[in-house]
């Protein structure tokens, strides 16, 4: 088999690192188990902690291509699994309408030739094993979840007109969820579970370093500390890792050498994205950055959302 088969947890951890993803302890372990046990992994956690990124990195590391199914409310079989190519079927019927019996035509038009594979089918019918990412499964309805069960436990799809299609190769499956809805027990039972949370300070610092290596050490540390402080606040949307990285890049572009109060006010909108949140952050974190001018700043009411960053 051309694809990579890891033999130990540390191997996976190193591999993911090489692929540009810094895994936490459990992340590497669960990824390893996923390749060993052939079970799908359900990844939950707040938005922007790198759930989708993990799938991409796994794909790079395992040298498998990534098949992605983005879920949304109202997603159905025809868009996720397969669909009959009815246009082609009609053409087939019409071009040979004379002289062929209905029996022949019927057998003919429900063949694989007339099947349009959608992501899930692509994933299991692929000749090379893939990484299948089912993104934001919590956005679909329960009916769709039920439909997934057959695929996730046995890696097969039943098509009424055609019979069962078995997987040619076994994909590594990742399902992500932002936890906006409780998933069904049946689905959870078939998966390994991985909870990704906001990383520890040191870990996040490493991540920022990896993605914005030119950023000064002390600035990076200060940046991560501020982001951690901001997450403690009561916000509508706390900043994610992706936003820390964006902020680091913004600071690089601006050539900032330190995060002082002015820089913070100007670039704050990179990490905070609601008007009320901006006010809260400006009042609670912004003024702390520069104790000397703290008083003056609170009088000036900082934090106008028009600050254009990068």
């Amino acid at each position, binding site marked *: 088999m051309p694809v990579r088969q890891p033999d130990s*947890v540390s191997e996976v951890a190193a591999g993911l690192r090489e692929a540009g993803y810094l895994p936490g*302890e*459990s992340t590497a*372990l*669960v990824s*390893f*188990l996923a390749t*060993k*046990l052939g*079970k799908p*992994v*359900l990844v*939950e956690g707040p938005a922007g902690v790198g759930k989708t990124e993990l799938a991409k990195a796994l794909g790079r590391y395992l040298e498998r291509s990534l098949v992605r199914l983005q879920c949304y*409310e*109202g997603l159905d079989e*025809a868009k996720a699994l397969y669909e*009959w190519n*009815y*246009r082609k*079927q*009609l053409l087939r*019927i*019409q071009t040979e*309408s004379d002289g062929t019996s*209905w029996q022949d035509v019927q057998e003919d*038009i429900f063949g694989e030739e007339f099947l349009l594979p959608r992501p899930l089918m692509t994933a299991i019918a692929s000749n090379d094993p893939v990484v299948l990412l089912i993104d934001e499964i919590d*956005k679909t309805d329960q009916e769709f979840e039920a439909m997934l069960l057959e695929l996730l436990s046995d890696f097969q799809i039943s098509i009424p007109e055609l019979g069962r299609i078995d997987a040619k190769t076994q994909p590594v499956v990742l399902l992500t969820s932002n*936890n*906006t*809805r*409780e998933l069904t*027990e049946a689905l*959870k*039972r078939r*998966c*390994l*579970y*991985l*909870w990704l949370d906001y990383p520890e300070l040191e870990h996040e610092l490493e991540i920022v370093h990896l993605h914005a290596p030119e950023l000064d050490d002390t600035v990076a540390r200060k940046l991560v500390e501020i982001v951690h402080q901001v997450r403690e606040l*009561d916000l*509508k949307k706390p900043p994610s890792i992706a936003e820390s990285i964006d902020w680091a890049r913004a600071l690089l572009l601006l050539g900032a050498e330190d995060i002082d109060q002015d820089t913070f006010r100007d670039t704050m909108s990179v990490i905070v994205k609601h*008007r*009320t949140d901006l006010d809260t952050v400006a009042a609670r974190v912004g003024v702390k950055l520069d104790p000397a001018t703290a008083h003056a700043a609170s009088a000036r009411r900082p934090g106008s959302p028009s600050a254009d960053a990068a």
Partner: protein
Amino acid sequence: VSRPVPPSAAIYGGIPDQGPGGFDAQLLAFAEDLRQEGVAVGTSEILDSFEALNHVAWTDQSDFKEALAATLAKSPEDRRVFELVFDRFFFRAAEAEAARREINESATSPSDAEINLDTLRQQIAAALRDGSEAALRDLARLAIAAFGRGEGSGVLGVDVQRIRRALGLRTEPQPDLPDYDPRQKGIPRDQLRRFEQHLRRELERDLIERTASLPPKRPLNELDRALPSGPIQDLAQVHKVVAQLKRRLATQGHELKGRKRHAHVDVRRTMRASLETGGVPITLKYRPRRPRRPEIFVLCDVSTSVTSASTFFLSVLHALHDAFRKLRSFVFIERISEVTEVFEHERDFRAASETISRDAGVADVSGYTDYGRVWEEFLALIEDELHPRATVIVLGDARTNGRPPRDDVFAAITAKAGRTFWLNPEPRLYWNYGDSVIAAYEKHCTAFECWRTDQLEEFVKALTRPVAS
């Protein structure tokens, strides 16, 4: 609960003297422990965990634990319980094994005479501040050696508190202490809690060693079990549920304008169906008619009897306003007052609730809810606007304070509106006790118990369920 019988051939056959049944029996017992604490662990999950342990080095504690967690605990709540049960179970298992083999740790601990109490106090406070777990454990042992031996009350909780007091560890600042002492500014509550856990654990270990038997295991208490949460997180939670409500409604198609809107032909399904008739579209397939988006009237009780719930209710209101344009909201105690404008103009929840408590003017004389008057005023106010496509939602506890419930007026409202829902912040158990008259209203509407966000979710499902019309 019947315990599953472990297979006779142990998976890890090479480990003798691991207690009865070997390692796999221990794991089954652990799973049983999890079940007792309310984690749903199925047989397939146990099999998965065995399978997973085949692939990781289970001599490494963190790998071992993560492998078990990934296969057994499948939600953040379960994960938290898992951590606690894991600690408890393997601590007890290890101690039991140590007792069985008569390995004794207390022989190596220093004697009382060597401990300088003042230094110990400061060391503990410093270790708490620096957050070093290993040091804390050692210091907890020292503290027990210094204060605990011999005079234990036999109740662990009492001993823990006695030792904590003797160490002078408090959350409030102690200004009379010298500057270099970390205790001077007070010790954060979570740090103190952690030290208490160490103390308890070490005391327990001591007890097991002395008595050479395992004390009965302590069920997890609710405080430990619950995920850390506060009203703030609840607000975010409510917004999340309502956002979901909005999404559900959005995907259910657009509002029907008038009765005669045409149904749309579903081309894909029609063509698909035409295959049965040789490609001639004989049967037309229509897109399903979607239920209309409801026009909503919300009435929210803000009296003192629902104080604890009214923050929750107001946040529901707030979130609903974020999601629906055709929404009118009212708050009431003795009279009713429309607050639609407040919510439309004020995006910040806290400011909105302040404005309401200041300006709504719904309390009259007594400050007790008067449902009869509220229904009459509501009916007078919007009688003309109620129509069969409107949904009325009442948030209140239906406690009339002895006043007439006037369910006849309420019935008139529900008759005019299409659907009426009642969200009661009290557990169903308390309904109709005392001055609660929810039964009188329940005849005319659908009542829900609603004081948690998961219950709100149930309600969302009911609200967006298509109505047969």
